[in-house]
């Protein structure tokens, strides 16, 4: 992916850009909001990683300007402003994701990958697959080895999130946000419980497991 990072703290910028480059991404770094807007409009990036408190033009204005100029590039806020209201503001101006500093690089990488691989909805007959598992998005029909699997609506949404990020790690926090709309970290193992129930329907009756646990991070589904 081609990534533009707008970050004025050289240490953070170096830490993140080095990690992303090692993960195979091309990263441009600017420290000024105005420079970021110019570059974001001129160049064709897949993702903009944006700090909210940058000199020149603040992060919210940068995002707003990029959106008003017609740019549909994915925007990920990476900021110390982690209040509920701050997050909502970030998403309101067109941000696609919000990561609060301090952060674990593994989480940032997972979110960057998820944003980069956002599959556009192709229409009513879109089908998502992993191995012999098939999901008809429009009709919410799931089959594996051509056998129908009865899933509850929330289980369907959980499976869809995994399938849309096939081959990549889906963090627990991403599941919480995208499946249930939780903006907080629950104290219980509610995600694990639902994954376990999903596995019981999707994996257990079959020989090859498709849903895999990524220790300490989340889950991943891929063609085994």
């Amino acid at each position: 992916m081609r990534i533009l990072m707008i970050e004025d703290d050289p240490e953070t910028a170096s830490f993140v850009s080095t990690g992303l480059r090692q993960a195979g991404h091309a990263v441009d770094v600017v420290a000024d909001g105005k420079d970021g807007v110019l570059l974001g409009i001129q160049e064709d990036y897949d993702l903009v990683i944006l700090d909210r408190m940058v000199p020149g033009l603040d992060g919210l204005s940068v995002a707003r300007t990029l959106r008003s100029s017609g740019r549909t590039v994915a925007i990920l806020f990476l900021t110390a402003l982690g209040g509920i209201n701050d997050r909502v503001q970030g998403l309101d101006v067109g941000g696609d994701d919000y990561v609060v500093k301090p952060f674990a690089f593994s989480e940032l990488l997972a979110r960057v990958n998820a944003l980069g691989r956002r599959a556009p909805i192709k229409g009513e007959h879109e089908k998502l697959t992993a191995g012999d598992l098939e999901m008809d998005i429009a009709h919410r029909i799931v089959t594996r080895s051509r056998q129908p699997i009865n899933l509850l609506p929330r289980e369907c949404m959980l499976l869809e999130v995994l399938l849309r990020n096939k081959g990549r790690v889906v963090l627990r926090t991403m599941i919480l946000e995208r499946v249930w709309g939780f903006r907080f970290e629950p104290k219980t193992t509610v995600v694990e419980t639902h994954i376990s129930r999903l596995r019981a329907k999707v994996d257990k009756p079959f020989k090859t497991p498709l849903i895999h646990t990524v220790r300490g991070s989340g889950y991943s589904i891929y063609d085994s």
Partner: protein
Amino acid sequence: MTVDYFVTRPQFKLAAGVALLFVIVSSFLFSTFVLNSNEEMERHAVTRINRIRDSLVAYEKRWGFDRLLQFVKDTDAWHDDEALISIVDAGDRSVLHTSSEISQPDAWGALGQPHQSLVLGKGFRKHRLFVASSPLSQGRLLVGQSDRKASVYRNLLLTSFALLNATAMASLLLLGMIFSRRSRSRIEAMKSALATFTAGDFDCRINFPGPVDALYELAYAINASLEHTKVLVQNLNYTSSDIAHNLKKPMTRLRQRLELASNGDLGRMEFKRKIEGALEEIDSLIATFEALLNIGQLQSGDMRSRFVDVDITALLTQIIEIYEPMIVDSGHYLETALPAKPVGTVRGDRELLMEMFVNFIENSILHCQSGTTIRIGLQRVKGGINVVISDNGPGVPSSEVENLYRRFYRLDASRAKPGHGLGVPCSVAIAELHGAVVEFGDNKPGLAVTIYFRTDPAAETPQLGLRMRSGLRVVPVSKR
């Protein structure tokens, strides 16, 4: 208190202004009345003397000069009607003069005055004499008419008016002084109380007796604000010491782990474990600060501008759907009591309300042993909506209930279970952001958490005390 003291008071200035306005307006009206009455009296007098003069001239023409003299002498009505008859012969010698008040030459002299009138008397008895003359066969006739009686009445009226004005002015100024003094003393009481409060006596309140006026209302509002400020300051103090106290332990652990990791004798795997442990401690500290920041932001009330109507029945149904597997898999039982029809909506933030309900449900899951029944109920009550999340677990001793509202407070003293002791304060802050009240009750056995959303502002909060963010009850200091 000096005159200057009152003169500079706004209340006194207002009263003086009103009094002055009253005097100006009433003087204008009275002057208009006096001018009109003077003209009317003059017109009346002139008409009368002309009529008398014409009658006497006609009488003289018919009966002769001597009979006229006799007629005038025999008639006493001139005196009662304040009329004057004066006759001189052809040589201007006096023949007859009926008035003792004014001499004949003076009376005849009035003919040369403006309006053919003279001012007689002094002070209160001052009045005017109007005259008119006519030639006779053997001399001249002068008829006069005085407005003495009418003048007396007019002067009486003028005196009454002056007295009325003086009384009104004095009364208004006196009232101004009384109100000024009371307002001043009340303002001084407020200044004094606020200064004492600012100096650090957080129990000081404005206190004065007397009738309810705008300043009393203001004092009442200030007292409520001072009470709120006191609670916030106390919270700040508690929070600061709580933060310091609660962060010391994880910081100590973090230091120990890093110190151990810095020991060169550790193997690679052990070193990695120590570093990972240190990272976990840091993540836990970050989570604590995030939770504190969130509570602060919730308490600021900024998020109210984003509120929408949230269907509370649908929200609870969704939460139950998410948590039913969790409750069942953890060995608990779930009981729900949601009405068949939606109970209505509350103004709020859907995600925050979800966080609040989930927090209370998760507390029941985490703090109750296997086999406990967790009940989620929703009902419409008078003036609002009640959500009750209860269990038949160990419950909370009544002596500990107030502590639940405190930040970092944990019933589990061993701290064996996960958490930072910020879940309940965060949920209470969410409830307060939504104007809701959280109450912890005895479920006999177990704990019952009632979240009351007031949907009808006119209705009183039933059975539930108004709570501030600390969980302390608010008692109005000044009661009417």
